[in-house]
Protein backbone atom coordinates (compact mmCIF):
# COMPACT_ATOMS: atom_id res chain seq x y z
CA UNK A 1 0.00 0.00 0.00
CA UNK A 2 1.29 3.39 -0.87
CA UNK A 3 0.38 6.88 -1.82
CA UNK A 4 1.25 8.26 -5.22
CA UNK A 5 2.16 11.91 -5.74
CA UNK A 6 2.56 13.68 -9.03
CA UNK A 7 4.15 17.05 -8.77
CA UNK A 8 4.15 19.52 -11.67
CA UNK A 9 4.54 16.82 -14.33
CA UNK A 10 5.68 18.10 -17.70
CA UNK A 11 6.08 16.11 -20.88
CA UNK A 12 7.43 17.37 -24.17
CA UNK A 13 8.12 15.64 -27.45
CA UNK A 14 10.82 17.75 -29.01
CA UNK A 15 9.56 21.31 -28.93
CA UNK A 16 5.89 20.47 -28.45
CA UNK A 17 4.78 20.28 -24.86
CA UNK A 18 1.89 17.91 -24.24
CA UNK A 19 1.75 17.87 -20.44
CA UNK A 20 1.67 21.24 -18.74
CA UNK A 21 2.47 20.76 -15.07
CA UNK A 22 -0.04 18.29 -13.68
CA UNK A 23 -0.13 17.94 -9.92
CA UNK A 24 -2.23 15.57 -7.84
CA UNK A 25 -1.99 13.02 -5.05
CA UNK A 26 -3.56 9.62 -4.74
CA UNK A 27 -4.01 8.67 -1.11
CA UNK A 28 -3.16 5.23 0.23
CA UNK A 29 -5.97 2.86 -0.68
CA UNK A 30 -7.79 5.40 -2.81
CA UNK A 31 -9.39 4.56 -6.16
CA UNK A 32 -8.79 7.44 -8.53
CA UNK A 33 -10.07 7.71 -12.09
CA UNK A 34 -8.27 9.77 -14.71
CA UNK A 35 -10.75 10.86 -17.35
CA UNK A 36 -10.67 13.10 -20.35
CA UNK A 37 -11.20 13.04 -24.09
CA UNK A 38 -8.76 11.23 -26.39
CA UNK A 39 -5.39 12.88 -26.47
CA UNK A 40 -5.79 14.58 -23.10
CA UNK A 41 -2.72 12.78 -21.78
CA UNK A 42 -4.39 10.46 -19.28
CA UNK A 43 -2.73 7.31 -20.62
CA UNK A 44 0.61 9.07 -20.91
CA UNK A 45 0.31 10.12 -17.28
CA UNK A 46 -0.43 6.55 -16.21
CA UNK A 47 2.49 5.22 -18.23
CA UNK A 48 4.70 7.81 -16.53
CA UNK A 49 3.65 6.50 -13.15
CA UNK A 50 4.44 2.99 -14.40
CA UNK A 51 7.84 4.12 -15.65
CA UNK A 52 7.11 3.19 -19.26
CA UNK A 53 7.30 6.80 -20.38
CA UNK A 54 9.98 9.39 -19.60
CA UNK A 55 9.12 12.52 -17.69
CA UNK A 56 10.36 15.84 -19.04
CA UNK A 57 9.84 17.72 -15.78
CA UNK A 58 8.41 17.39 -12.29
CA UNK A 59 8.52 14.47 -9.91
CA UNK A 60 6.54 11.31 -9.34
CA UNK A 61 6.78 9.63 -5.99
CA UNK A 62 5.38 6.36 -4.79
CA UNK A 63 5.29 5.73 -1.06
CA UNK A 64 7.26 8.93 -0.49
CA UNK A 65 10.10 7.80 -2.72
CA UNK A 66 10.82 9.79 -5.88
CA UNK A 67 10.76 7.26 -8.70
CA UNK A 68 11.60 9.42 -11.72
CA UNK A 69 14.67 7.34 -12.49
CA UNK A 70 13.51 4.05 -11.05
CA UNK A 71 13.00 1.13 -13.45
CA UNK A 72 9.38 0.00 -13.90
CA UNK A 73 10.04 -3.32 -12.22
CA UNK A 74 11.47 -1.60 -9.14
CA UNK A 75 8.37 0.55 -8.61
CA UNK A 76 6.24 -2.18 -7.05
CA UNK A 77 3.19 -1.61 -9.20
CA UNK A 78 1.09 -3.72 -11.51
CA UNK A 79 -0.68 -2.59 -14.62
CA UNK A 80 -3.69 -3.92 -16.48
CA UNK A 81 -3.38 -3.03 -20.13
CA UNK A 82 -6.13 -2.00 -22.50
CA UNK A 83 -5.40 -4.97 -24.75
CA UNK A 84 -4.66 -7.23 -21.73
CA UNK A 85 -1.18 -8.10 -23.06
CA UNK A 86 -1.42 -11.72 -21.96
CA UNK A 87 1.54 -13.91 -22.90
CA UNK A 88 -0.09 -15.98 -25.65
CA UNK A 89 2.27 -18.95 -25.33
CA UNK A 90 1.73 -19.39 -21.59
CA UNK A 91 -1.21 -20.90 -19.80
CA UNK A 92 -3.38 -18.85 -17.47
CA UNK A 93 -1.44 -20.31 -14.55
CA UNK A 94 1.91 -19.35 -16.06
CA UNK A 95 0.63 -15.91 -17.02
CA UNK A 96 -0.49 -15.23 -13.49
CA UNK A 97 2.59 -16.70 -11.85
CA UNK A 98 5.13 -15.09 -14.17
CA UNK A 99 6.00 -12.17 -11.92
CA UNK A 100 6.38 -14.38 -8.86
CA UNK A 101 8.57 -16.77 -10.80
CA UNK A 102 10.80 -13.85 -11.78
CA UNK A 103 11.12 -12.98 -8.10
CA UNK A 104 12.23 -16.54 -7.43
CA UNK A 105 9.28 -17.15 -5.16
CA UNK A 106 9.04 -20.75 -3.95
CA UNK A 107 6.85 -23.00 -6.11
CA UNK A 108 4.35 -23.64 -3.34
CA UNK A 109 3.89 -19.93 -2.74
CA UNK A 110 3.30 -19.28 -6.44
CA UNK A 111 0.75 -22.12 -6.45
CA UNK A 112 -1.18 -20.78 -3.48
CA UNK A 113 -1.20 -17.19 -4.62
CA UNK A 114 -2.26 -18.07 -8.17
CA UNK A 115 -4.97 -20.33 -6.77
CA UNK A 116 -6.14 -17.59 -4.44
CA UNK A 117 -6.33 -15.02 -7.23
CA UNK A 118 -8.03 -17.53 -9.52
CA UNK A 119 -10.57 -18.15 -6.80
CA UNK A 120 -11.36 -14.47 -6.40
CA UNK A 121 -11.73 -14.01 -10.15
CA UNK A 122 -13.58 -17.25 -10.89
CA UNK A 123 -10.78 -18.62 -13.05
CA UNK A 124 -10.17 -21.87 -11.17
CA UNK A 125 -11.34 -24.05 -14.07
CA UNK A 126 -9.30 -22.23 -16.67
CA UNK A 127 -5.81 -22.32 -15.15
CA UNK A 128 -4.42 -24.73 -17.75
CA UNK A 129 -5.88 -23.00 -20.76
CA UNK A 130 -4.08 -20.72 -23.16
CA UNK A 131 -5.33 -17.15 -23.54
CA UNK A 132 -6.70 -17.89 -27.01
CA UNK A 133 -9.05 -20.46 -25.48
CA UNK A 134 -10.71 -17.84 -23.30
CA UNK A 135 -13.49 -15.35 -23.92
CA UNK A 136 -12.88 -11.61 -23.77
CA UNK A 137 -14.19 -11.29 -20.24
CA UNK A 138 -12.06 -14.21 -19.05
CA UNK A 139 -8.94 -12.71 -20.62
CA UNK A 140 -9.76 -9.50 -18.84
CA UNK A 141 -9.89 -11.41 -15.56
CA UNK A 142 -6.58 -13.11 -16.26
CA UNK A 143 -5.03 -9.70 -16.83
CA UNK A 144 -6.45 -8.66 -13.46
CA UNK A 145 -5.25 -11.86 -11.88
CA UNK A 146 -1.74 -11.28 -13.15
CA UNK A 147 -1.82 -7.94 -11.37
CA UNK A 148 -3.25 -9.12 -8.07
CA UNK A 149 -0.99 -12.14 -7.47
CA UNK A 150 1.84 -9.63 -7.21
CA UNK A 151 0.18 -7.84 -4.30
CA UNK A 152 1.69 -4.59 -5.54
CA UNK A 153 1.64 -1.26 -3.77
CA UNK A 154 -0.26 0.38 -6.61
CA UNK A 155 -2.60 -0.89 -9.33
CA UNK A 156 -2.71 0.88 -12.65
CA UNK A 157 -5.56 0.32 -15.11
CA UNK A 158 -5.29 1.59 -18.66
CA UNK A 159 -8.82 1.55 -20.08
CA UNK A 160 -9.18 -2.14 -19.23
CA UNK A 161 -12.87 -2.32 -20.07
CA UNK A 162 -12.92 -0.65 -23.46
CA UNK A 163 -12.62 -3.91 -25.39
CA UNK A 164 -15.59 -5.55 -23.68
CA UNK A 165 -19.19 -5.44 -24.81
CA UNK A 166 -21.63 -3.23 -22.92
CA UNK A 167 -23.14 -5.83 -20.60
CA UNK A 168 -19.77 -7.30 -19.64
CA UNK A 169 -18.38 -3.84 -19.08
CA UNK A 170 -21.04 -3.08 -16.48
CA UNK A 171 -20.35 -6.40 -14.76
CA UNK A 172 -16.55 -5.95 -14.74
CA UNK A 173 -16.99 -2.42 -13.48
CA UNK A 174 -18.66 -3.73 -10.36
CA UNK A 175 -16.14 -6.57 -10.05
CA UNK A 176 -13.12 -4.29 -10.23
CA UNK A 177 -14.65 -1.99 -7.64
CA UNK A 178 -15.46 -4.93 -5.38
CA UNK A 179 -11.93 -6.20 -5.81
CA UNK A 180 -10.57 -2.83 -4.83
CA UNK A 181 -12.73 -2.71 -1.72
CA UNK A 182 -11.46 -6.14 -0.80
CA UNK A 183 -7.75 -5.52 -1.43
CA UNK A 184 -7.78 -1.88 -0.29
CA UNK A 185 -4.94 -1.10 -2.66
CA UNK A 186 -4.13 2.26 -4.19
CA UNK A 187 -5.54 2.27 -7.71
CA UNK A 188 -5.35 4.61 -10.67
CA UNK A 189 -7.85 3.91 -13.40
CA UNK A 190 -7.68 5.57 -16.82
CA UNK A 191 -10.84 5.80 -18.88
CA UNK A 192 -12.47 8.02 -21.46
CA UNK A 193 -15.87 6.89 -20.25
CA UNK A 194 -17.18 9.27 -17.62
CA UNK A 195 -19.80 6.73 -16.54
CA UNK A 196 -17.03 4.31 -15.60
CA UNK A 197 -15.27 7.05 -13.69
CA UNK A 198 -18.44 8.16 -11.91
CA UNK A 199 -19.45 4.66 -10.85
CA UNK A 200 -16.08 3.29 -9.79
CA UNK A 201 -13.87 6.03 -8.44
CA UNK A 202 -13.53 7.59 -5.02
CA UNK A 203 -12.17 10.63 -6.77
CA UNK A 204 -12.10 11.73 -10.39
CA UNK A 205 -9.39 13.74 -12.05
CA UNK A 206 -10.46 15.41 -15.27
CA UNK A 207 -7.74 16.19 -17.78
CA UNK A 208 -7.81 18.16 -20.99
CA UNK A 209 -4.86 18.74 -23.33
CA UNK A 210 -2.31 17.90 -20.67
CA UNK A 211 -3.85 20.09 -18.00
CA UNK A 212 -5.74 19.16 -14.88
CA UNK A 213 -9.22 20.65 -15.13
CA UNK A 214 -10.72 19.48 -11.87
CA UNK A 215 -10.20 16.86 -9.19
CA UNK A 216 -12.92 15.79 -6.83
CA UNK A 217 -15.49 13.24 -5.76
CA UNK A 218 -17.81 12.09 -8.57
CA UNK A 219 -20.88 13.90 -7.30
CA UNK A 220 -18.89 17.02 -6.52
CA UNK A 221 -17.89 17.16 -10.18
CA UNK A 222 -21.45 16.57 -11.21
CA UNK A 223 -22.96 19.15 -8.88
CA UNK A 224 -20.34 21.85 -9.03
CA UNK A 225 -18.13 21.53 -12.11
CA UNK A 226 -15.25 23.97 -11.82
CA UNK A 227 -15.47 25.03 -15.44
CA UNK A 228 -17.50 24.65 -18.59
CA UNK A 229 -15.33 21.81 -19.88
CA UNK A 230 -15.89 19.61 -16.84
CA UNK A 231 -19.55 20.59 -16.89
CA UNK A 232 -19.88 19.32 -20.45
CA UNK A 233 -17.72 16.25 -19.92
CA UNK A 234 -19.27 14.83 -16.76
CA UNK A 235 -22.87 13.71 -17.06
CA UNK A 236 -24.78 11.97 -19.81
CA UNK A 237 -26.52 13.32 -21.79
CA UNK A 238 -24.22 16.32 -21.64
CA UNK A 239 -25.15 19.56 -19.94
CA UNK A 240 -26.69 22.28 -22.08
CA UNK A 241 -24.13 25.07 -22.27
CA UNK A 242 -25.59 28.18 -23.81
CA UNK A 243 -23.77 31.42 -24.49
CA UNK A 244 -25.42 34.71 -23.65
CA UNK A 245 -25.05 38.21 -22.32
CA UNK A 246 -25.69 39.01 -18.67
CA UNK A 247 -27.59 42.28 -18.34
CA UNK A 248 -29.82 43.54 -15.54
CA UNK A 249 -30.21 40.23 -13.75
CA UNK A 250 -31.05 38.37 -16.96
CA UNK A 251 -29.06 36.33 -19.45
CA UNK A 252 -29.91 37.31 -22.98
CA UNK A 253 -29.50 34.10 -25.01
CA UNK A 254 -31.02 35.59 -28.16
CA UNK A 255 -32.63 39.00 -28.77
CA UNK A 256 -36.02 37.47 -27.96
CA UNK A 257 -34.98 34.94 -25.34
CA UNK A 258 -33.75 35.54 -21.80
CA UNK A 259 -33.44 33.56 -18.58
CA UNK A 260 -32.98 34.88 -15.04
CA UNK A 261 -29.35 35.20 -14.00
CA UNK A 262 -28.57 32.66 -11.23
CA UNK A 263 -25.65 34.69 -9.83
CA UNK A 264 -24.21 38.15 -10.07
CA UNK A 265 -22.47 38.62 -13.38
CA UNK A 266 -22.07 41.05 -16.16
CA UNK A 267 -21.17 40.70 -19.84
CA UNK A 268 -20.76 37.50 -21.83
CA UNK A 269 -21.40 34.28 -19.86
CA UNK A 270 -22.08 30.61 -20.42
CA UNK A 271 -25.28 29.36 -18.87
CA UNK A 272 -25.35 25.67 -18.00
CA UNK A 273 -28.32 23.48 -17.20
CA UNK A 274 -28.37 19.67 -17.17
CA UNK A 275 -31.08 18.04 -19.31
CA UNK A 276 -32.44 16.30 -16.20
CA UNK A 277 -32.88 19.64 -14.42
CA UNK A 278 -35.37 20.97 -16.95
CA UNK A 279 -39.04 20.33 -16.30
CA UNK A 280 -42.18 20.66 -18.36
CA UNK A 281 -44.38 23.56 -17.26
CA UNK A 282 -47.71 24.89 -18.54
CA UNK A 283 -47.65 27.64 -21.15
CA UNK A 284 -47.22 31.10 -19.69
CA UNK A 285 -45.46 29.99 -16.49
CA UNK A 286 -42.95 32.43 -15.14
CA UNK A 287 -39.45 32.01 -16.64
CA UNK A 288 -40.61 29.26 -19.00
CA UNK A 289 -38.70 28.69 -22.22
CA UNK A 290 -40.77 28.05 -25.32
CA UNK A 291 -39.27 25.11 -27.20
CA UNK A 292 -40.26 23.42 -30.45
CA UNK A 293 -39.53 19.68 -30.23
CA UNK A 294 -37.21 18.48 -33.01
CA UNK A 295 -36.60 14.90 -31.88
CA UNK A 296 -37.72 12.49 -29.16
CA UNK A 297 -35.73 9.43 -28.14
CA UNK A 298 -36.81 7.02 -25.48
CA UNK A 299 -34.82 4.31 -23.76
CA UNK A 300 -37.79 3.19 -21.70
CA UNK A 301 -36.63 4.54 -18.38
CA UNK A 302 -35.87 7.98 -19.77
CA UNK A 303 -37.04 10.17 -22.61
CA UNK A 304 -34.62 12.55 -24.30
CA UNK A 305 -36.18 15.53 -25.94
CA UNK A 306 -34.18 17.65 -28.34
CA UNK A 307 -35.67 21.03 -29.01
CA UNK A 308 -35.16 24.31 -30.70
CA UNK A 309 -35.73 27.59 -28.87
CA UNK A 310 -35.35 30.56 -31.12
CA UNK A 311 -32.50 28.93 -33.01
CA UNK A 312 -30.71 27.45 -29.99
CA UNK A 313 -30.57 23.66 -29.49
CA UNK A 314 -31.48 22.38 -26.06
CA UNK A 315 -31.77 18.85 -24.64
CA UNK A 316 -34.08 17.78 -21.84
CA UNK A 317 -34.49 14.47 -20.08
CA UNK A 318 -37.67 13.19 -18.45
CA UNK A 319 -38.29 9.96 -16.64
CA UNK A 320 -42.09 10.19 -16.59
CA UNK A 321 -42.63 9.61 -20.33
CA UNK A 322 -44.38 12.80 -21.39
CA UNK A 323 -46.48 12.21 -24.54
CA UNK A 324 -44.39 14.34 -26.88
CA UNK A 325 -43.64 14.08 -30.54
CA UNK A 326 -41.71 16.02 -33.14
CA UNK A 327 -43.09 19.46 -33.88
CA UNK A 328 -44.83 19.91 -30.50
CA UNK A 329 -44.60 23.23 -28.71
CA UNK A 330 -43.51 22.81 -25.09
CA UNK A 331 -42.44 25.00 -22.20
CA UNK A 332 -39.39 24.16 -20.11
CA UNK A 333 -38.27 25.57 -16.82
CA UNK A 334 -34.82 25.23 -15.27
CA UNK A 335 -34.60 24.42 -11.55
CA UNK A 336 -33.23 27.62 -10.05
CA UNK A 337 -30.71 25.95 -7.71
CA UNK A 338 -29.38 23.56 -10.39
CA UNK A 339 -28.07 26.16 -12.78
CA UNK A 340 -24.42 26.79 -13.59
CA UNK A 341 -22.76 29.95 -14.75
CA UNK A 342 -19.33 30.16 -16.37
CA UNK A 343 -17.15 32.95 -17.64
CA UNK A 344 -17.05 32.94 -21.45
CA UNK A 345 -13.34 33.56 -21.87
CA UNK A 346 -11.83 31.61 -18.99
CA UNK A 347 -14.72 29.09 -18.81
CA UNK A 348 -14.32 29.21 -15.01
CA UNK A 349 -17.35 28.82 -12.78
CA UNK A 350 -18.95 32.06 -11.58
CA UNK A 351 -21.72 30.96 -9.21
Amino acid at each position, binding site marked *: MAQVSLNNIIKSYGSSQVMHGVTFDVADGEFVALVGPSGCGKSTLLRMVAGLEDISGGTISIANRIVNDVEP*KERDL*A*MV*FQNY*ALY*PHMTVRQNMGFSLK*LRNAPKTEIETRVAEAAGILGLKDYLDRL*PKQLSGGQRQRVAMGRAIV*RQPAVFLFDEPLSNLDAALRVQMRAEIRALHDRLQSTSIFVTHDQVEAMTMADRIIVLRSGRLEQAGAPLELYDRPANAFVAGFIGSPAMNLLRGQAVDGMIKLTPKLSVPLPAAADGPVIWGIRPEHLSLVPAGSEGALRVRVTAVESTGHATFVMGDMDGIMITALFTDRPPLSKGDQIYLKASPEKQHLFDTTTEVRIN
Partner: protein
Amino acid sequence: MRRLGFYAALGILILWSIGPVYWALVTSVTPPNALVSDILRLWPEQMTFEHYAKLFGATSTSQGNEVQSVWPQFSQAFFNSLLTAFAATVLTVLIAAFGGWAFVRLRFPGRDLIFVVIVGTLGVPAYTVMIPLYRIMISAGLVDTYTGVVLIYVSAFLPLALWLMRSVYQAMPLSLEEAAWLDGASKLYTLVRIVLPLAGPGLVATAILTFLSAWGQFMVPLVFSPTLDTKPLTVLIPEFVTRNYVDYGLMNAAGIVAIVPPVLLVIFLNRFLVQGLMAGASK
Protein backbone atom coordinates in the same frame (compact mmCIF):
# COMPACT_ATOMS: atom_id res chain seq x y z
CA MET B 1 -14.10 -18.76 -68.50
CA ARG B 2 -12.43 -17.16 -65.52
CA ARG B 3 -11.79 -20.58 -64.03
CA LEU B 4 -10.21 -21.67 -67.28
CA GLY B 5 -7.85 -18.69 -67.18
CA PHE B 6 -7.04 -19.46 -63.57
CA TYR B 7 -6.12 -23.06 -64.34
CA ALA B 8 -4.15 -22.04 -67.41
CA ALA B 9 -2.14 -19.59 -65.32
CA LEU B 10 -1.68 -22.22 -62.64
CA GLY B 11 -0.47 -24.72 -65.24
CA ILE B 12 2.06 -22.29 -66.64
CA LEU B 13 3.30 -21.49 -63.16
CA ILE B 14 3.71 -25.16 -62.28
CA LEU B 15 5.44 -25.87 -65.58
CA TRP B 16 7.71 -22.90 -64.98
CA SER B 17 8.79 -23.98 -61.51
CA ILE B 18 8.63 -27.77 -61.71
CA GLY B 19 9.66 -28.13 -65.37
CA PRO B 20 13.42 -27.66 -64.98
CA VAL B 21 13.50 -29.90 -61.93
CA TYR B 22 11.61 -32.57 -63.82
CA TRP B 23 13.96 -32.24 -66.78
CA ALA B 24 16.96 -32.63 -64.51
CA LEU B 25 15.38 -35.74 -63.02
CA VAL B 26 14.69 -37.20 -66.47
CA THR B 27 18.19 -36.44 -67.65
CA SER B 28 19.66 -38.05 -64.57
CA VAL B 29 18.00 -41.39 -65.39
CA THR B 30 18.54 -41.34 -69.18
CA PRO B 31 21.36 -43.43 -70.69
CA PRO B 32 24.18 -41.26 -72.09
CA ASN B 33 23.59 -42.22 -75.73
CA ALA B 34 19.86 -41.47 -75.49
CA LEU B 35 20.67 -37.99 -74.20
CA VAL B 36 21.88 -36.88 -77.60
CA SER B 37 19.08 -38.52 -79.61
CA ASP B 38 16.94 -36.39 -81.91
CA ILE B 39 13.62 -37.55 -80.49
CA LEU B 40 12.28 -35.59 -77.53
CA ARG B 41 11.12 -37.96 -74.85
CA LEU B 42 9.42 -36.97 -71.60
CA TRP B 43 10.63 -40.19 -70.03
CA PRO B 44 13.53 -42.34 -71.28
CA GLU B 45 12.69 -45.59 -73.02
CA GLN B 46 15.21 -47.29 -70.81
CA MET B 47 15.64 -45.93 -67.34
CA THR B 48 19.11 -46.14 -65.88
CA PHE B 49 20.74 -45.39 -62.58
CA GLU B 50 24.25 -45.46 -63.99
CA HIS B 51 24.77 -41.73 -63.35
CA TYR B 52 23.82 -42.15 -59.71
CA ALA B 53 26.08 -45.18 -59.57
CA LYS B 54 28.87 -43.06 -60.96
CA LEU B 55 28.17 -40.41 -58.37
CA PHE B 56 28.06 -42.71 -55.37
CA GLY B 57 30.11 -45.59 -56.71
CA ALA B 58 33.76 -46.48 -57.08
CA THR B 59 35.48 -46.27 -60.44
CA SER B 60 33.39 -46.47 -63.58
CA THR B 61 33.86 -46.63 -67.31
CA SER B 62 32.99 -43.91 -69.71
CA GLN B 63 33.40 -44.27 -73.46
CA GLY B 64 35.62 -47.26 -72.87
CA ASN B 65 37.97 -45.46 -70.47
CA GLU B 66 38.16 -46.08 -66.78
CA VAL B 67 37.08 -42.95 -64.91
CA GLN B 68 38.07 -42.05 -61.36
CA SER B 69 35.22 -42.07 -58.89
CA VAL B 70 33.76 -38.61 -58.21
CA TRP B 71 32.35 -39.66 -54.83
CA PRO B 72 35.24 -38.32 -52.71
CA GLN B 73 34.91 -34.92 -54.38
CA PHE B 74 31.12 -34.99 -54.36
CA SER B 75 30.80 -35.98 -50.71
CA GLN B 76 33.34 -33.38 -49.62
CA ALA B 77 31.56 -30.64 -51.58
CA PHE B 78 28.21 -31.82 -50.21
CA PHE B 79 29.58 -31.52 -46.70
CA ASN B 80 31.04 -28.09 -47.47
CA SER B 81 27.71 -26.89 -48.81
CA LEU B 82 25.86 -28.17 -45.75
CA LEU B 83 28.34 -26.75 -43.28
CA THR B 84 28.64 -23.27 -44.79
CA ALA B 85 24.91 -22.91 -45.41
CA PHE B 86 24.04 -24.19 -41.94
CA ALA B 87 26.61 -22.02 -40.14
CA ALA B 88 25.59 -18.95 -42.14
CA THR B 89 21.92 -19.59 -41.33
CA VAL B 90 22.46 -20.02 -37.60
CA LEU B 91 24.65 -16.94 -37.35
CA THR B 92 22.40 -14.78 -39.51
CA VAL B 93 19.21 -15.74 -37.69
CA LEU B 94 20.86 -15.25 -34.32
CA ILE B 95 22.17 -11.79 -35.16
CA ALA B 96 18.94 -10.78 -36.90
CA ALA B 97 16.84 -11.98 -33.95
CA PHE B 98 18.63 -9.66 -31.56
CA GLY B 99 19.59 -6.89 -33.99
CA GLY B 100 16.11 -6.58 -35.47
CA TRP B 101 14.71 -6.15 -31.98
CA ALA B 102 17.27 -3.47 -31.17
CA PHE B 103 16.28 -1.53 -34.27
CA VAL B 104 12.65 -1.53 -33.11
CA ARG B 105 12.73 -1.24 -29.35
CA LEU B 106 16.02 0.33 -28.31
CA ARG B 107 16.73 4.02 -28.68
CA PHE B 108 20.21 4.97 -29.75
CA PRO B 109 21.54 7.83 -31.84
CA GLY B 110 21.37 7.24 -35.57
CA ARG B 111 19.24 4.13 -35.17
CA ASP B 112 17.11 4.60 -38.24
CA LEU B 113 19.99 5.90 -40.34
CA ILE B 114 22.12 2.87 -39.50
CA PHE B 115 19.26 0.61 -40.43
CA VAL B 116 18.74 2.34 -43.78
CA VAL B 117 22.46 2.05 -44.53
CA ILE B 118 22.45 -1.67 -43.69
CA VAL B 119 19.42 -2.36 -45.85
CA GLY B 120 20.88 -0.09 -48.52
CA THR B 121 23.77 -2.51 -48.98
CA LEU B 122 21.23 -4.87 -50.55
CA GLY B 123 21.30 -2.57 -53.54
CA VAL B 124 25.08 -2.85 -54.02
CA PRO B 125 25.82 -5.43 -56.75
CA ALA B 126 28.03 -8.23 -55.48
CA TYR B 127 30.33 -7.86 -58.50
CA THR B 128 31.42 -4.38 -57.44
CA VAL B 129 32.67 -5.54 -54.05
CA MET B 130 34.22 -8.79 -55.27
CA ILE B 131 37.74 -7.45 -55.91
CA PRO B 132 38.12 -5.32 -52.75
CA LEU B 133 36.56 -8.15 -50.77
CA TYR B 134 39.06 -10.59 -52.26
CA ARG B 135 41.97 -8.37 -51.23
CA ILE B 136 40.59 -8.10 -47.72
CA MET B 137 40.12 -11.85 -47.46
CA ILE B 138 43.63 -12.47 -48.80
CA SER B 139 45.21 -10.16 -46.24
CA ALA B 140 43.08 -11.67 -43.49
CA GLY B 141 44.14 -15.13 -44.62
CA LEU B 142 40.51 -16.19 -44.94
CA VAL B 143 40.40 -17.33 -48.58
CA ASP B 144 39.39 -20.98 -48.85
CA THR B 145 38.37 -21.20 -45.18
CA TYR B 146 34.93 -21.94 -43.76
CA THR B 147 35.19 -18.81 -41.62
CA GLY B 148 35.78 -16.64 -44.66
CA VAL B 149 32.92 -18.04 -46.71
CA VAL B 150 30.49 -18.02 -43.80
CA LEU B 151 31.42 -14.43 -42.92
CA ILE B 152 30.72 -13.32 -46.46
CA TYR B 153 27.39 -15.16 -46.47
CA VAL B 154 26.38 -13.57 -43.18
CA SER B 155 27.27 -10.10 -44.37
CA ALA B 156 25.38 -10.69 -47.59
CA PHE B 157 22.19 -12.17 -46.12
CA LEU B 158 22.01 -10.30 -42.81
CA PRO B 159 20.45 -7.09 -44.19
CA LEU B 160 17.41 -8.91 -45.55
CA ALA B 161 17.16 -11.01 -42.38
CA LEU B 162 17.36 -7.90 -40.19
CA TRP B 163 14.72 -6.22 -42.27
CA LEU B 164 12.43 -9.23 -41.97
CA MET B 165 12.88 -9.58 -38.24
CA ARG B 166 12.42 -5.87 -37.71
CA SER B 167 9.01 -5.99 -39.37
CA VAL B 168 8.14 -9.08 -37.32
CA TYR B 169 8.91 -7.19 -34.10
CA GLN B 170 7.16 -4.06 -35.32
CA ALA B 171 3.98 -6.07 -35.74
CA MET B 172 4.12 -7.30 -32.14
CA PRO B 173 2.29 -5.29 -29.49
CA LEU B 174 4.67 -3.35 -27.28
CA SER B 175 2.32 -3.84 -24.36
CA LEU B 176 3.37 -7.52 -24.13
CA GLU B 177 6.93 -6.48 -23.45
CA GLU B 178 5.86 -3.70 -21.13
CA ALA B 179 3.76 -6.17 -19.17
CA ALA B 180 6.82 -8.37 -18.77
CA TRP B 181 8.99 -5.43 -17.66
CA LEU B 182 6.40 -4.50 -15.06
CA ASP B 183 6.26 -8.12 -14.00
CA GLY B 184 9.95 -7.74 -13.20
CA ALA B 185 11.69 -9.12 -16.28
CA SER B 186 14.79 -7.53 -17.74
CA LYS B 187 14.82 -6.48 -21.37
CA LEU B 188 16.99 -9.43 -22.36
CA TYR B 189 14.86 -11.92 -20.44
CA THR B 190 11.74 -10.46 -22.03
CA LEU B 191 13.26 -10.78 -25.47
CA VAL B 192 14.29 -14.37 -24.95
CA ARG B 193 11.25 -15.66 -23.03
CA ILE B 194 8.37 -13.58 -24.37
CA VAL B 195 9.31 -12.06 -27.71
CA LEU B 196 11.37 -14.77 -29.41
CA PRO B 197 8.89 -17.61 -28.83
CA LEU B 198 6.22 -15.46 -30.44
CA ALA B 199 8.51 -14.45 -33.28
CA GLY B 200 8.92 -18.15 -34.21
CA PRO B 201 7.31 -17.97 -37.64
CA GLY B 202 9.43 -14.95 -38.51
CA LEU B 203 12.60 -16.69 -37.37
CA VAL B 204 11.72 -19.79 -39.40
CA ALA B 205 11.01 -17.74 -42.51
CA THR B 206 14.32 -15.94 -42.07
CA ALA B 207 16.14 -19.25 -41.57
CA ILE B 208 14.62 -20.79 -44.71
CA LEU B 209 15.44 -17.75 -46.82
CA THR B 210 19.00 -17.59 -45.56
CA PHE B 211 19.64 -21.30 -45.96
CA LEU B 212 18.29 -21.36 -49.52
CA SER B 213 20.35 -18.31 -50.48
CA ALA B 214 23.51 -19.76 -48.99
CA TRP B 215 22.91 -23.21 -50.46
CA GLY B 216 22.43 -21.78 -53.94
CA GLN B 217 25.35 -19.37 -53.76
CA PHE B 218 27.69 -19.74 -56.74
CA MET B 219 29.74 -16.63 -57.34
CA VAL B 220 31.09 -16.15 -53.83
CA PRO B 221 32.43 -19.71 -53.45
CA LEU B 222 33.66 -19.67 -57.06
CA VAL B 223 36.04 -16.91 -55.99
CA PHE B 224 36.64 -17.67 -52.33
CA SER B 225 36.58 -21.48 -52.32
CA PRO B 226 39.16 -22.48 -54.94
CA THR B 227 39.92 -25.95 -53.53
CA LEU B 228 37.93 -28.85 -52.23
CA ASP B 229 38.73 -27.68 -48.69
CA THR B 230 35.66 -25.46 -48.83
CA LYS B 231 34.29 -25.85 -52.36
CA PRO B 232 30.50 -26.39 -52.35
CA LEU B 233 28.32 -28.39 -54.74
CA THR B 234 27.31 -25.38 -56.77
CA VAL B 235 30.91 -24.89 -57.84
CA LEU B 236 31.83 -28.56 -58.10
CA ILE B 237 28.97 -29.73 -60.32
CA PRO B 238 29.79 -27.49 -63.32
CA GLU B 239 33.32 -28.88 -63.16
CA PHE B 240 31.96 -32.22 -64.41
CA VAL B 241 32.36 -30.57 -67.79
CA THR B 242 35.63 -31.86 -69.23
CA ARG B 243 37.50 -30.71 -72.26
CA ASN B 244 35.93 -33.11 -74.68
CA TYR B 245 32.89 -34.44 -72.90
CA VAL B 246 29.99 -32.86 -71.01
CA ASP B 247 28.61 -35.46 -68.61
CA TYR B 248 25.00 -34.26 -68.56
CA GLY B 249 23.75 -37.36 -66.80
CA LEU B 250 26.23 -37.05 -63.94
CA MET B 251 25.67 -33.34 -63.55
CA ASN B 252 21.93 -33.74 -63.35
CA ALA B 253 22.15 -36.68 -60.96
CA ALA B 254 24.34 -34.52 -58.72
CA GLY B 255 21.90 -31.66 -59.12
CA ILE B 256 18.97 -33.80 -58.06
CA VAL B 257 20.88 -34.94 -54.97
CA ALA B 258 21.74 -31.33 -54.22
CA ILE B 259 18.06 -30.42 -54.16
CA VAL B 260 17.33 -32.85 -51.34
CA PRO B 261 18.67 -30.93 -48.29
CA PRO B 262 16.80 -27.67 -48.95
CA VAL B 263 13.61 -29.59 -49.70
CA LEU B 264 13.93 -31.56 -46.46
CA LEU B 265 14.65 -28.39 -44.53
CA VAL B 266 11.62 -26.59 -45.91
CA ILE B 267 9.37 -29.58 -45.18
CA PHE B 268 10.75 -29.79 -41.65
CA LEU B 269 10.55 -26.08 -40.85
CA ASN B 270 7.23 -25.57 -42.59
CA ARG B 271 5.33 -26.89 -39.61
CA PHE B 272 6.74 -24.08 -37.48
CA LEU B 273 5.64 -21.49 -39.99
CA VAL B 274 2.11 -21.69 -38.66
CA GLN B 275 0.24 -18.52 -38.12
CA GLY B 276 -1.78 -17.68 -35.03
CA LEU B 277 0.94 -17.85 -32.40
CA MET B 278 -0.15 -14.42 -31.25
CA ALA B 279 -3.80 -15.41 -30.83
CA GLY B 280 -5.14 -14.57 -27.40
CA ALA B 281 -2.61 -11.93 -26.48
CA SER B 282 -5.18 -9.19 -26.64
CA LYS B 283 -8.83 -8.29 -26.94
